[in-house]
């Protein structure tokens, strides 16, 4: 790799010692490859020296996936940021992993297409990171999360080989290794190119804001819509605290006195859109909506979305620290689970807000606090684990989109048996026999071969230049 593309100055290392989650690690060096070959040489060199390595996009991950442990080498893909091709005939795009999610849609929208998965962090996160976490977003409700949009990926496997997983043809002979790789959080290798499916821009889009006097009524509306066979393009919920915070921050036109609001988007062809907008309005009122407003024009629509997408910026103004959770429950259980979650926050004397992907039951309880307050972290962690247990008890899962990373690694036994974890351990060993690709992530310790002899030496001087 060329001069200046591998560095180990203390400031730089500090910058790459964590992602947007709460835990930090320590990097021994960081490098900025420009090609698959660069990535492969970094992986091979690290392997030769027995040093672990971590793939990193923008580091917006919230589960510690990109946080370097054991003095790992951080391999940052942000300089691999070319859109290689957009094919409107086959409705796909080929991109390098460092392309920002929003930039891809910016490229394709004028051509009549968009890339559907739109994480709230889409201005900052990379497609490679999205592949790493199998990212979701508000518009994944109708069209599916990242995995459903990734056709083929070029990856540098932990063995140092460059392989293509999946294909542009609909089926690939053999196992769906593409499917296994998406969401593997950098533990199966590093993707260096991605072919994604593009979707035609919908001819009609309507965005509705429903407001409620209780969280229960909003939750019941979500269940009511799903049960009635309405699948909106997006269905997001915000409770009273976050609605007010957002309103103070960007003035999106949300009612400040609502106990909860639902942001619902319907898209498609005119006839179906009109029918579904009516259905949403009717079901909303049946379940106690105080008001249902349809954005009158594109500007109003954009503003409603701006509110939702600014939620995290708004929080920064309220308290110095926040802890964002991510779990999924069956949509029929939303109301009950929300009640329990609020009760947990009250019991732990914490401020809690909820802004989440209600349509697929993907909760994001958000605890805001001041980390300088003595003992507060203990209460934050206690509340967090109670929340996750509540979701699992309701038939849910530990993570809907942020991933396991370091954060939930040790909670995996809540969801999986020893046999399940052993099978996952054998699978990851098949991809990463040396155990150097982002080790000690996803699986709790004890489920992989040779885990104990993975302590690394520092990077030998001059290895990377």
């Amino acid at each position, binding site marked *: 790799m060329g001069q200046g593309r591998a560095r180990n100055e203390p400031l730089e290392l500090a910058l790459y010692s964590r992602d947007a989650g709460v835990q930090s690690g320590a990097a021994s060096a960081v490098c900025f490859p420009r090609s698959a070959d660069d990535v492969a040489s970094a992986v091979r060199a690290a392997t030769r020296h027995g040093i672990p390595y971590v793939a990193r996009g923008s580091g917006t991950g919230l589960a510690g996936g990109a946080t370097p442990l054991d003095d790992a080498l951080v391999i940052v893909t942000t300089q691999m940021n070319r859109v290689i091709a957009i094919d409107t005939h086959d409705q796909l795009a080929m991109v390098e992993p460092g392309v920002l999610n929003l930039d891809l849609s910016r490229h394709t929208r004028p051509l009549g297409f968009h890339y559907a998965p739109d994480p709230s962090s889409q201005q900052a996160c990379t497609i490679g990171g999205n592949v790493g976490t199998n990212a979701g977003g508000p518009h994944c409700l109708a069209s599916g999360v990242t995995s459903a949009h990734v056709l083929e990926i070029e990856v540098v496997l932990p063995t140092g080989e460059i392989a293509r997983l999946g294909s542009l043809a*609909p089926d690939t002979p053999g196992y769906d290794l593409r499917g296994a790789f998406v969401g593997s959080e950098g533990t199966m290798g590093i993707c260096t190119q991605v072919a994604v499916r593009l979707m035609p821009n919908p001819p009609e889009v309507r965005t509705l804001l429903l407001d409620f006097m209780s969280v229960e009524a909003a939750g019941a509306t979500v269940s009511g819509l799903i049960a009635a066979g309405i699948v909106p393009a997006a269905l997001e919920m915000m409770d009273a605290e976050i609605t007010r915070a957002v309103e103070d921050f960007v003035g999106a036109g949300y009612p400040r006195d609502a106990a909860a609001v639902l942001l619902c988007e319907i898209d498609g062809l005119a006839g179906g859109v009109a029918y579904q907008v009516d259905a949403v309005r009717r079901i909303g009122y049946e379940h106690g909506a105080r008001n249902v407003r349809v954005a009158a024009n594109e500007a109003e629509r954009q503003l409603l979305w701006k509110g939702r997408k600014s939620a995290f910026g708004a929080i920064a103004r309220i308290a110095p620290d926040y802890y964002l959770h991510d779990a999924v429950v069956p949509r029929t259980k939303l109301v009950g689970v929300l009640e329990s979650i609020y009760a947990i926050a009250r019991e732990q004397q914490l401020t809690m807000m909820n802004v989440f992907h209600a349509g697929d*039951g993907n909760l994001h309880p958000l605890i805001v606090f001041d980390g300088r307050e003595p003992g507060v972290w203990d209460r934050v962690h206690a509340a967090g684990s109670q929340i996750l247990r509540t979701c699992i008890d309701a038939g849910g899962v530990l993570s809907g989109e942020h991933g396991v990373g370091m954060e939930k690694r040790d909670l995996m036994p809540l969801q999986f048996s020893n046999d399940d974890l052993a099978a996952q351990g054998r699978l990851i060993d098949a991809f990463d026999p040396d155990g150097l690709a982002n080790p000690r992530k996803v699986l709790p310790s004890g489920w992989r071969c040779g885990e104990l002899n993975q302590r690394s030496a520092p990077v030998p001087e001059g290895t990377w230049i």
Partner: protein
Amino acid sequence: MDLTFERIAVPIIETLRGDDARVVAHGSGTHAATANPVEFGCEEIRVPSGIVRHDPADMTVTVLAGTTCRELADVLGEHGQEVPLDPADDRATIGGVLACGLSGTRRLRLGPVRDAVLEVRVVDGNATLIKGGGPVVKNVTGYDIPRLMVGSFGTLGVIVQATLRCRPKAPSQRWYRTERDPFAVRQAMFKPTSILWNGHETSVLIEGFEQDCDDEAARGNLTEAAGNGSAWIFDARSRSHRGRISVRPTDVRATMSRLAMDSSVHCVAEVGVGTIHVSSDDVEALVRARAAAVAESGWLLRESGGPLGFDGFGDGVANSGLAGRVKSAFDPHGKLAPGRMPL
């Protein structure tokens, strides 16, 4: 009868514990000849049928792997829901459809079969009952074992139970015909459900609200028709030699031209997807069809027939080194469907 997946797994685990165990899961046999034949002497395992849980308001359904697609469609249909698996023969079992990973002809709009699977319970070659995925519609917890099981032809595990994502059935479903170029039709339309082309005629399926169907038909300049293209695929079942070509969607036209040189071959292409269903009464036809696919950088999966020694996949599997290690992770002693996949 109280049939839980744990109970069902007991004898399967017992069988797989044997050092010399060689097993193959058997559904309804509609795709028993797909890919490669298993080695002689494999013990057949049949998983019972049954809907374990259907939660209409959550739009998820959990079924035992032996459940047929028809049974599932009947139960979901009562609630206006479906899982668009669409096998040519609806006696196919859920376990079989997932193991073969063969998507239905509505893939253009509704996606491949792998996207419908939320959770699987399988007995692997280590004789352990394992779970992959989770029973909710969105989940990134742990490695994606469900995706690996789909299309693994039973070589990684015997699927005992699966949880699938349901969708509301479209209020209307209409077939159209057109003489126009099917590729131009595809570009002109918004989200057609299926565009089937046999080289002469194009048959288009549109699903949605009544007005949406009219709107789409106008975009594609289509005429409503009584007959439909899915019958072409259904009819193909009467021919002994069948295969499924997979090429990049743009290469469908060139592949169809190559296939047209062989008058014994019947072809139905899924335009926009890249799947071409081929069938023939001539035993050598699959050899020629495979050559046509390979010439366009695609491949052909045998669904049935072909000459003696005709390989189910042709050129082996992609990334065979890694695939082999994955196989060993789940089935180190090669007990599951030996011979079925070239690994």
